[in-house]
């Protein structure tokens, strides 16, 4: 009965009742149960728990237990202490996103339009790094950028570069690592939206007096916008919360919010502050995404 209650009235008037019952049985709702249970157990419940623990009495500890006391001051204190780290996280994530976009767009464009029979191979090459662990790949960067590594040695030998050049344990290394790790998340959505584009549209733009640059700005870029939005979101959001790259490639003065939360949870045992930071992070990102998507004019994406 509840299933039939959702039917739009016009459909009821057009088709006989018996037919409707046949088409919209309870099967659809039964099929939704596993997903719903999954979401409830592993998304709704943890989110509520997280929000609750962000309001714990900060004097609690693993030994004495925690008390939910609606202690809102957790938020003000967390923000007062960790605002610069928040800012730095978003800055690094933003920089990595820009780097990904600048590297990823030409790559996606080349795969979509110029690769010809190499297209699949190039796509595999983009995805191939996923076959190795995230940690191993980031550790490789540590090796690549190390003081005795090939890159630093070569650069140091150049005349304009100072001899005590360091790359590892700098913001540069963190942003490089972030950009490297999240590049596929930029390339794949960009490729998907560019691939859908009819290349004849560029011929038409040229025919209508648009120079190649003009045609790119007026046709290719607007049509790739869904990919740009999806790609930047898929890069920025995980990059802002990432803690591996900073852990392995950064230094204590490049700490990002992910490291801070991890450290507060696991080492300091300050569950309340860590939860408050997590919730703040989540809210800020959701707000940023909403504003961004609205501004980019691609509401149909979400």
């Amino acid at each position, binding site marked *: 009965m509840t299933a039939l209650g959702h039917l739009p009235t016009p459909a009821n008037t057009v088709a006989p009742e018996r037919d409707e019952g046949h088409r919209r049985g309870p099967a659809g709702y039964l099929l939704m149960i596993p997903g719903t249970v999954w979401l409830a157990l592993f998304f709704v419940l943890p989110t509520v728990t997280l929000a609750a623990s962000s309001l714990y009495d900060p004097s609690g500890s693993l030994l004495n237990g925690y008390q939910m006391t609606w202690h809102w001051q957790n938020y003000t204190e967390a923000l007062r202490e960790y605002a610069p780290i928040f800012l730095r996280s978003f800055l690094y994530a933003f920089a990595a996103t820009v780097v990904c976009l600048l590297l990823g767009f030409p790559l996606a464009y080349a795969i979509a339009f110029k690769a010809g029979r190499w297209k699949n191979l190039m796509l595999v090459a983009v995805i191939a790094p996923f076959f190795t662990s995230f940690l191993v790949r980031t550790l490789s960067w540590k090796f690549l950028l190390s003081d005795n590594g090939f890159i630093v040695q070569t650069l140091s030998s150049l005349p304009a570069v100072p001899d005590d050049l360091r790359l590892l344990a700098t913001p540069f290394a963190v942003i490089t690592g972030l950009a490297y790790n999240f590049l596929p998340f930029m390339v794949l959505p960009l490729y998907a939206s560019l691939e859908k584009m*009819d290349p*004849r*549209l560029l*011929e*038409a*733009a*040229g*025919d*209508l*007096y*648009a*120079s190649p640059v*003009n*045609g790119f700005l*007026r*046709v290719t870029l*607007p*049509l790739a916008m869904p990919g740009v939005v999806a790609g930047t979101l898929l890069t920025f959001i995980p990059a802002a919360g990432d803690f591996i790259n900073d852990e392995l490639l950064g230094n204590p003065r490049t700490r990002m919010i992910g490291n801070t939360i991890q450290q507060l949870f696991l080492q300091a045992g300050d569950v309340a502050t860590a939860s408050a930071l997590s919730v703040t992070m989540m809210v800020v990102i959701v707000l940023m995404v909403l504003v961004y998507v609205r501004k980019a004019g691609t509401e149909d994406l979400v």
Partner: protein
Amino acid sequence: MTTAPIRETHGGDMTGRGGEKPEPGGGQQAGDLELRNVTKRFGSFVAVDDLDLTVPHGSFFALLGASGCGKTTTLRMVAGLERPTQGQVLLGGSDISGLKPYKRPVNTVFQSYALFPHLTVFENVAFGLRRTKGSDISRKVGEMLELVQLQEYGQRRPAQLSGGQQQRVALARALINRPQVLLLDEPLGALDLKLRRAMQIELKRIQTEVRITFVHVTHDQEEAMTMADTIAVMNAGVVEQMGHPAELYEHPRTTFVANFLGQSNLLEGQARSAGAEIEVDVQGATLRAVPERSSVGSGPVRLGVRPEKVSLVDSSAPVDGQLNRLGGGVVTDVSFVGVSTQYLVRMPWGQELMVFEQNTGQRPSYAGGSSVDLCWRPEHAFLLDAGQDAKAGAGLDAV
């Protein structure tokens, strides 16, 4: 501007290559489109072979041919989307072969329309105008949408329009720039028959109104004949014949044109001159033809006659000396198509000839198996060189 003025090719003509815009020749604003010895090769495949073509300014010109004959490649070379391997494309006397598409005063209506899906109809039409900061874009677009009768649709997206409407947006988008030449690449191919007929008349009306040179590529001979002032029939990269539609139809010079443009009965025979006329021996019968409609005057020939020029008479009917008469036919197939009846008549030597007769109701139609003779006036026959494939161009028309 009906005759093509002959232009001098100056010694410095080649300086026009390499992207810079050459001076317009002799002070005339617009002029003929000319292709000189244009060849286009894709690898070892020759798409267009040493093509010479002059399209007079302001004419409606059709490039007609089966798919793969090089007509679209020719069009794309005029648009600048392909570069000729050899030869020159001239517009108003100046060489545009080296110009990028966006620098040519030429616009195209693409076969797939290629409308910009992210822009409204208004912005699609305004696209070519947006290169300069013009003030009256809105007025111009309004006028153009009115011309193609889409005033109400300015704020819609292309995906919200029907095929015919999209086609008109594509036309408006190209025409609004007032190009010197408008190129149409099978623009009506995606439309259904009825809409296509309506758009043919519409296109012709618009062309008469704006007086811009239209170059129309099509494989549909009826479409070409309905709209064009001049048709060039292309086959395997070369122009077989060019001329007014009626001239091409009545006076084909190759078997390809005779078969591709309408249908033809082609009879093998031996020609000899006989006074003012030419006599042709066909399977023992002597048929007459006039020199004005003959490519060859003696020796082995193919005598062609259009099915609607032929009439059927009873074998026993009295002979009219004015007419060519071919006896001994047997009707093998009769199809009634309303305005006319189409017969297939098997001749004693095994060849089947087509006859279309108007259903005027003057006499009952023949039934299958009837013995008939075929008659036509000598001036309706045309003679072709026998050294060609009699079936060339037959059955290629996709319509």
